[in-house]
């Protein structure tokens, strides 16, 4: 899958006749590329446009301009129609496992929905498929007859994954799939996502603000800031050789997993914060837009006004 110069702008209406008076540039010109079987991370603080990007890719959000290519075909328009091929191949997992399951439907019906929409199997095979799905996600077969509220958070998230897997997709967009879960359950779901990936050769787009989880899961990482990418690169590029000021700030604010040396970390963090405030304006051009990406190596791209600016 390829994303070319994707833009999502929201109009702000007001004044006479509710005319459009301004725009919110939620996503402002991003390019992405996904290869089969890899995991891609999309990281940024809340409000930077990372969820909007995810939703725009799958067709839950109107695209202002830009193109989405899937296996060489332009699917930008296709995303809207419910029965398109695209929807079979691209699925989504949401953050809140509870509110994304219909409380009045049994698990069997929840899992059957994508099968009925896309696969059109006879009832007996449909049941068989549901049993298979439950087995893949490691849930007992009797959970078919239960309702979503009878499960714990981790189990519900696994049902969500099962539903996403129902149509044998190639790409799964996971929007903060584990941020609402406890540490031990989070480990369960993450391990499990890795297992199914290996089994089915899935590609993930993993949207998260948790840099620890992203490092564990992802091969290639995009850092997003104010609707644009400020840096992207392989896991090693980002974590061992961050170039953009914003990336460095994100990395410096992750709490460490040991109390040793925390005073030193704190003063380093605060010193860095001063540097950040002083220099962050350099990351924008005169229109307040983050600069375009400049390649540093084959994989590593950083936004800057010119190559000289990168330190």
């Amino acid at each position: 899958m390829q994303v070319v110069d994707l833009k999502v702008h929201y109009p702000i209406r007001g004044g006479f006749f509710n005319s459009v008076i301004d725009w919110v540039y939620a996503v402002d010109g991003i390019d992405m590329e996904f290869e089969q079987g890899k995991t891609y991370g999309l990281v940024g603080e809340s409000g930077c446009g990372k969820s909007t990007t995810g939703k725009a890719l799958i067709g839950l959000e109107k695209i202002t301009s830009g193109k989405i290519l899937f296996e060489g075909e332009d699917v930008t328009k296709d995303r809207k129609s419910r029965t398109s091929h695209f929807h079979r191949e691209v699925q989504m997992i949401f953050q809140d496992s509870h509110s994304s399951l219909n409380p009045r439907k049994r698990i069997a019906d929840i899992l059957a929905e994508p099968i009925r929409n896309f696969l059109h199997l006879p009832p007996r095979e449909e049941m068989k498929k549901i049993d298979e799905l439950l087995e893949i996600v490691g849930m007992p077969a009797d959970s078919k007859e239960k309702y979503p509220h009878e499960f714990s958070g981790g189990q519900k998230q696994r049902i969500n994954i099962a539903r996403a897997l129902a149509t044998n997709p190639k790409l799964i967009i996971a929007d903060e799939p584990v941020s609402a879960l406890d540490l031990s359950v989070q480990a369960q779901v993450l391990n499990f996502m890795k297992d199914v990936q290996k089994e089915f050769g899935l590609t993930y787009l993993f949207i998260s603000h948790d840099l620890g989880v992203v490092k564990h899961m992802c091969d290639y990482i995009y850092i997003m800031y104010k609707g644009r990418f400020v840096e992207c690169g392989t896991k090693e590029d980002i974590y061992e050789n961050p170039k953009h000021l914003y990336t460095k700030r994100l990395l410096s604010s992750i709490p460490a997993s040991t109390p040793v040396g925390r005073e030193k970390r704190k003063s380093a963090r605060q010193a860095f914060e001063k540097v950040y405030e002083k220099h962050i304006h350099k990351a924008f051009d005169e229109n307040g837009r983050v600069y375009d990406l400049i390649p540093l190596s084959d994989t590593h791209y950083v936004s800057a006004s010119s190559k000289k600016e990168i330190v």
Partner: protein
Amino acid sequence: MDLLAVRNLHVGFRINDAFYDAVDGVSFTLKNNEILAIVGESGCGKSTLATSIIGLHHGRNVRVTGEILYGERNLLELSEEEMDHIRGAEIAMIFQDPLSALNPLMRIGDQIEEALTYHTELSKVEREERVLQLLKQVGIHRPEQTARQFPHQLSGGMRQRVMIAIAISCKPKIIIADEPTTALDVTIQAQILDLLKELQKETGAGIILITHDLGVVAEMADRVMVMYAGEIIEEAPVQKLFSNPRHPYTRLLFHSMPQLHSTKKRLHVIEGIVPSLINLPRSGCRFSHRIPWIPKEAHEEQPKFHKISKDHFVKCTCWKYFRFRDEKGEAD
């Protein structure tokens, strides 16, 4: 002298005409100038413990027994009116979600002033001055402007700063922070935690920090208590707990954390789930069914809180026999 001493606290909720203890026999102390972290998964009773300290449980459907000693007084025996003078003035609380804890119809300045009106003798002018001073203290750059705004006009980090301003407005001796940064971004989280720590240094208050995030604990706490299924299962100074965790649950918890500096392919998973309040085993080691490969004899019948070194306490004896189990189900 301890600032706060909790002794054998039980908080039970009525379910189908029987009481089930969500907090089951918890005892601990809090000293001046100390940050005590309480760590645990959702449903372990850590928030119930916090809300019982500031007396937010009453009515027929809750039963609170034990002692919460603040100075000479047992908070559980005070009348509602006496409690009103302590709550907010001497013991303050910071909640997880600042948007739902702030009144959406009141200006920020008025909300901070409310506490001052109730608990202090300051005049209107003095109060307004103090509000601006508090906003400045929590790192808000334009206090005059912010004081006139409503909660929805502020960002999440700003709102949490306002919550902290309200909490410290009457110079409380104890601040209870219930997941103060869970709803915030990492960059903002670091700022808020640094702020809390600085304020504590200035005021000398004791802080009870409730969280599920071990990273936050590592950055903040002096002493840590780990809670599981309503009980405290391990207590130690922060350095000791991170370098030498003893209870199987604590060790497994550390093991399941994605590490920034490790390249481990798989995360460790704790088997099973936290039992619900009704199904909680009331005798024996509560963690035993999640480590089934450890023989039954390793657990005590009535687990006690053992002192294993000067300031390190562990519940039950199973920690002595505990080993991790690898993927194939064999102990390593």
